[in-house]
């Protein structure tokens, strides 16, 4: 899997891995983030405020700190290490680890936008559904979720673009193994460190292009922000 640009040969692997990691982590965060947002939307208790902060924390913490926590939890000697080994799951130095790291990093983006979108749904419309005989499940899937969908999806697009560029947490947990866990962002760092400036520049342009296309597509699909 190689292609050439300006006379240089590139491996396609980092691009495909980055798309796979960004896609899967966005999907996982979409489910987890929307679920968390549903639980915490319109709650005003102290407990809810604490959990809300915890859900937002990955957005402000340095990715290396997140990576460190993930190693403590998922590493070979980590809290869940033995249990994961039983299940045959290996997150250290594997592409699955890159997905987990990216999921944690992009989670707050989706959680925040989903929570805002769900809170903006007219409460009376949800109450009307309840008085008409709808269960909480029906209220959520037939009323709240469709009405909040645009907000949640725009969060997901941001998350995907952010996931494409994830570096720190991925490096800590999954490492930087060419052909195995080396994503676009890591490949750029490698190329630059090795003094291969032309390769780095090409990958930088490629990454910028992909992210720009994603954001423009998102804007178009969601009917524009205006």
């Amino acid at each position: 899997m190689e292609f050439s640009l300006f006379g240089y040969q590139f491996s396609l692997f980092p691009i495909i891995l980055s798309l796979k990691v960004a896609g899967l982590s966005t999907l996982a965060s979409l489910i987890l983030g929307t679920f968390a947002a549903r639980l915490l939307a319109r709650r005003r208790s102290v407990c809810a405020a604490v959990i809300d902060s915890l859900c937002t924390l990955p957005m402000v913490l340095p990715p290396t700190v997140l990576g460190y926590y993930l190693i403590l939890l998922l590493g070979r000697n980590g809290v869940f290490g033995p249990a994961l080994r039983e299940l045959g799951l290996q997150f250290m130095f594997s592409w699955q680890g890159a997905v987990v790291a990216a999921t944690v990093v992009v989670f707050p983006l989706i959680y925040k936008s989903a929570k805002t979108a769900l809170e903006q749904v007219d409460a009376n419309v949800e109450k009307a559904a309840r008085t008409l005989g709808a269960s909480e499940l029906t209220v959520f899937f037939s009323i709240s979720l469709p009405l909040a969908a645009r907000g949640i999806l725009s969060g997901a697009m941001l998350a995907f673009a952010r996931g494409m560029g994830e570096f720190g947490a991925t490096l800590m947990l999954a490492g930087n193994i060419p052909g195995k866990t080396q994503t676009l962002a890591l490949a750029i760092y490698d190329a630059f460190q090795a003094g291969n400036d032309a390769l780095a520049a090409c990958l930088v342009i490629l990454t910028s292009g992909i992210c720009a296309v994603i954001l423009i597509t998102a804007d178009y699909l969601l009917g524009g922000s205006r």
Partner: protein
Amino acid sequence: MIDLTVQTTLKGKQGSFSLDIHLQSSADRLVLFGPSGSGKTLTLQMIAGLIHPRRGRIVVGDTVFFDSEKGIDMPTRLRRVGYVFQDYALFPHMTVWQNLAFALRRHKENHAAHTGFFSFLPARLEEKDGESIRRMLELLEITHLADRRPSQISGGQKQRVALARVLLIAPRVLLLDEPFAALDPLLRIRMRKEVSRILSDCGVPLIMITHDPEDVDAFADDLAVYANGGILAMEEDFRGRTLFAQDSLSYLTDILNRGGHADRPHGFDDV
């Protein structure tokens, strides 16, 4: 028709509000009249189960909705009350037809034979259900709006849709919250007549909130006058006894004097 005794205290940004209501009426049409913030909407929300009183008992017809002593608290979705919100609360992402179909589906799930392995799936609508929706659209004279969205119809039309939607669940009682306040005066007169006609057609008992004396004249068999989280006066067989719209001021002054309320309720300061 309704027997309600509730006590509760709500804490809000402007301090706490306490509600202490005893409301009993066997009339088909009960009007709750009073100024904004006197607890009328809270009463409706408690009947619908959207707010839970601290203690009390709510009985509609023969059905006990709430009884704090016996620990009864029927969930909102099973209470089958036709609550028409002040802003109508139509589902903005559905057409008029889909709004009505939503109600009918839920009614089938909760009250018809919707059991078995697939009962977690939404109820399916059959040919005769489509017929029920069509008949309801005809009754409310909104057949031509079936494919429109709520954002594409007028206020009066939204009200008809909201009424059609709640009538499809065969409500035990219709709860109307300031139904005509948002309409222009000419439409208001027409919709009063329409709602009156539909109520007689369907035989559903009504509890209506209003602060418009004209509504009292048009609807009140029984009248409950609210002020400050309590009921100031309860009038039975009120209809035709007085032209409330013309005499409401002297009537209210009268009950304020007659009731011997040392503390004049704040709500009526501006009457």
